[in-house]
């Protein structure tokens, strides 16, 4: 199958959908995007079950793009497909104006092209270009409803993002100087024979810092809560579900695994940054009263888990990182869908003003319990398995103290999510919420779908592990 289509179709769709006859036909573009995300999910499944039929890029000489796909890419592509689909379902209710909806879908297509490009490329400069496509598209998405706060948040994001870009670009320049070209394999080879030790360390450090900023790892997390909480609901789902993680975390995973290798210094850096991020993110979440801000801080904390898993420097750690990547994009998207539903019904994001919504919005409440428990790593949900794998990987690689941090931070995670549950859904009905009714059918459908994936991936974990996660161990480059 032609995986390069995952980049080409969205790019061409942006062009075609903006041609005069189709312009302002929001419905058409909306359904095009919906079909594309479904096709992407189907394609990933097809490739996973028919590995022999993968032809990444048949237009090789024509496109001059260096594309490749392995088990890591499939997990991420699948997450992108699912989150994109959910984003579109949510967007139907929150991006109201027709022209705006059309613009939204166009920019979303652009972002999808960028994300898929990041995942499929095997050249560090091409990676950078797609990174910028996706980042630029997400700035526009944040401000798509032209709200003042959103503009402020997007500006903050852009400033930090530019910093990251500069770092990455200088690092790429250094690599080009050392290795002679920017292909992953040549840079990796340069690590073995090159005499420019200092420059290599400098370049790796710069790149990792850039990825940390993009991922919102502490201490570079300042932009993230703002950007998540001020974006329109569907954009938050998209950002939290996949954009930040692909831009920052996937890049980090790919570069560490395919280019730098798991050097002890890098592992220690990742472990330390991961542990700090987990703890501070969770503590930050405990202190918030805004539904979306709680979830934003929770995202920071969960991203820490992925970084920590990667830092264990073992094959199991790598696959655990990817598994948590997938799980996090599902349960965090679900929680943001829930927050969108409650915000739409109660017109507020302040959790103190809600309470006892379970009686009024049973489906939203039930799915949010599932997402919270999965996030806290409570079995038998999917989040439990990835956290368990992370803990096993950490203990096996001789870092029991980091395992202890991961485990204790799970208690903090459970604490802030229970407090969220208590203030929003559990408890007695707040008098202001007496008139609230269940969210619109599309939102409930999106939430139930994600909840089913979380429960299904947890209960049928042998299938998920064997098909998607454990093959990753084979491409571990320790």
């Amino acid at each position: 199958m032609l995986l390069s289509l995952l980049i080409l179709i969205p790019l061409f769709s942006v062009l075609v959908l903006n041609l005069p006859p189709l312009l302002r036909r929001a419905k058409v573009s909306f359904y095009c995007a919906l079909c594309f995300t479904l096709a992407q999910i189907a394609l990933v499944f097809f490739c996973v079950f028919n590995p022999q039929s993968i032809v990444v890029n048949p237009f090789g000489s024509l496109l001059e793009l260096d594309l490749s796909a392995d088990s890591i890419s499939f997990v991420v592509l699948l997450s992108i497909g699912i989150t994109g689909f959910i984003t579109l379902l949510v967007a139907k209710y929150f991006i109201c104006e027709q022209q705006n909806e059309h613009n939204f879908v166009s920019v979303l297509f652009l972002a999808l092209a960028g994300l898929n490009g990041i995942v499929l490329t095997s050249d560090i400069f091409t990676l950078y270009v797609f990174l910028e496509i996706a980042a630029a598209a997400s700035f526009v998405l944040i401000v798509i409803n032209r709200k003042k706060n959103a503009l402020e948040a997007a500006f903050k994001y852009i400033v930090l993002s530019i910093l990251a870009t500069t770092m990455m670009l200088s690092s790429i320049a250094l690599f080009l100087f050392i290795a002679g070209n920017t292909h992953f394999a040549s840079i990796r080879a340069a690590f073995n024979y090159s005499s420019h030790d200092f420059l290599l360390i400098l370049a790796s450090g710069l790149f990792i810092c850039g990825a940390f900023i993009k991922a919102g790892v502490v201490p570079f997390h300042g932009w993230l809560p703002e950007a998540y909480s001020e974006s329109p609901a569907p954009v938050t789902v998209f950002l939290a579900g996949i954009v930040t993680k692909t831009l920052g975390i996937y890049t980090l995973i790919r570069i560490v695994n395919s280019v730098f290798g798991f050097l002890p210094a890098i592992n220690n850096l990742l472990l330390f940054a991961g542990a700090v991020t987990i703890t501070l993110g969770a503590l930050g979440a405990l202190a918030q009263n805004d539904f979306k801000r709680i979830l934003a801080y929770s995202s920071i904390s969960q991203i820490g888990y992925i970084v920590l898993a990667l830092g264990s420097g073992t094959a199991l750690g790598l696959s655990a990182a990817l598994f948590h990547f997938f799980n996090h994009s599902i349960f965090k998207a679900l929680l943001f869908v829930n927050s969108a539903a409650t915000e739409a019904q109660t017109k507020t994001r302040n959790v103190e003003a809600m309470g006892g919504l379970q009686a009024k919005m049973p489906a939203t409440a039930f799915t949010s319990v599932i997402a919270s428990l999965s996030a806290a790593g409570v079995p038998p949900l999917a989040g439990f398995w990835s956290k368990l794998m992370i803990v096993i990987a950490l203990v096996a690689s001789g870092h029991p103290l980091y395992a202890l941090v991961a485990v204790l931070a799970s208690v903090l995670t459970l604490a802030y999510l229970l407090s969220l549950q208590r203030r929003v859904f559990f408890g007695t009905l707040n008098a202001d919420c007496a008139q609230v009714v269940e969210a619109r059918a599309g939102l409930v459908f999106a939430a139930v779908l994600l909840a089913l994936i979380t429960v299904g991936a947890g209960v049928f974990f042998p299938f998920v592990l064997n098909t998607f996660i454990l093959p990753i161990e084979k491409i571990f480059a320790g």
Partner: protein
Amino acid sequence: MQNISLLLIVCVPAIGAFLLPLIGRLNRGLRNGLAFIFVLCSCLLSFSLLPCVLSGKVIEIAKYLPLGFNFILVADSLAVFMACVSSAISAVILLFSWDYISHYDNQNEYYSMVVLFLGAMMGLVFSANLILMYIFWEITAISSWRLIGFFRKKTDVLRADKAFLVTVFGSLLMLLGFVSIYQQTGSFDLSVIREYFRHNPLSAVTAALILAGIFSKSATLPFHTWLPDAGVAPSPVTALLHAAVLVKIGVYVYARLFIVNFPVSLLLCSIVPWIAGVSALVCGGAALIGTDFKRIVAYSTISQIGFIFLGLSLGTEIGVFGGLLYILMHGIAKAGLFLCAGIVEQNAGSKDITKLGGLFKVMPLTAVSFLFCVFSVMGIPPFGGFFSKYMVFSALVGNGNQMLTFIFLIGAILTILYLARLFMLVFTGELRIAAKREGSSLMVASVVILALACLAGGFFVGYPSKVVQSVVNQMLTQQ
């Protein structure tokens, strides 16, 4: 055939729990009936396995899964004994809740969670893989969280969160212990672990991590505070937490891991009895000065759990025998106490024992049943509790530790004092609250069943002893 029954014992309640809310939307009577049938089904099937496992046979279902997260259910006599005790008590409690719960909101969630609770308990007792055990362990935490917060008032929900957080804190430490065992032995399967530890010692840190999980679940000092606070739950739920399921999980896992699978370490044998002793003493004292009906009974549970841990941790045959018999007798009696508390709370409208009094005249059957259960917990012959307490004490005396014997003797005296005080204040004296009637016939019938079981446990102590004896034999030969 026996494999299928084993699978059904776990799956009927675990899967049935999710059908109940759906059925509840159609017909409430059908839902209540089905909930009872699910529990009864587990109970009857457990009893049907009893003769088979007592003859020494072990039933096993195994499905091997990636990364050692295997699905292995093993029914040996310890597991079946525990399953019988829990499911039988749960069945009575469920019968009680038909009337007790009938006029509150969220009944669908209630029945679903109670049945899931039992299903997870059944899964836990039969699981022979540490991860599988941990999964069921956490499912009980989820359902107890929802059940404790059943009334949805602010304190209820806060305390539900507290219970969830404390038990999860402990269980995550336990998980870390499990992972370090995996690191050592290369497997989560109990059979492999047992073989490994025949020749190798268990590190003290690992043992401490696992003990933290066990103590937090069975509410032993210093993780005990959530249990008295959980008294805000509906009475059948507290009965379930205290008598049938939750705190017994800790005790069971202790027996399963530290007696059957891990090597006997001197450190453990000397520390656990002391923790149990302090726990029995402190919480006995707390029960003596309490004024909240359910809190007193809750503290009593913590103190009695100390006796169970004592019996199990002494490492002698007679101690284990006493501990297991104690699980049975205490379970029956404590369930009876809480259900009586539920009747009093609902009909007298108060849990404050300083405001109650003279209820013997109004609810004689409840009072007599309460008295029977009280006698059993105190350990007065010929009630069942006497025999178990006697066995634990005789193991303790045989162990020769005088200080510890003294502590537990005080613990036992405290038990008599606080329970006598409780009974006097609530049921004797002048009637001070306008409570006119006995509880509904179904509720009274359930407490009478439990009270009679306390008495029968004493008169026919031979039957449970025979079962417990063969359980002990099998455990010690496996060791």
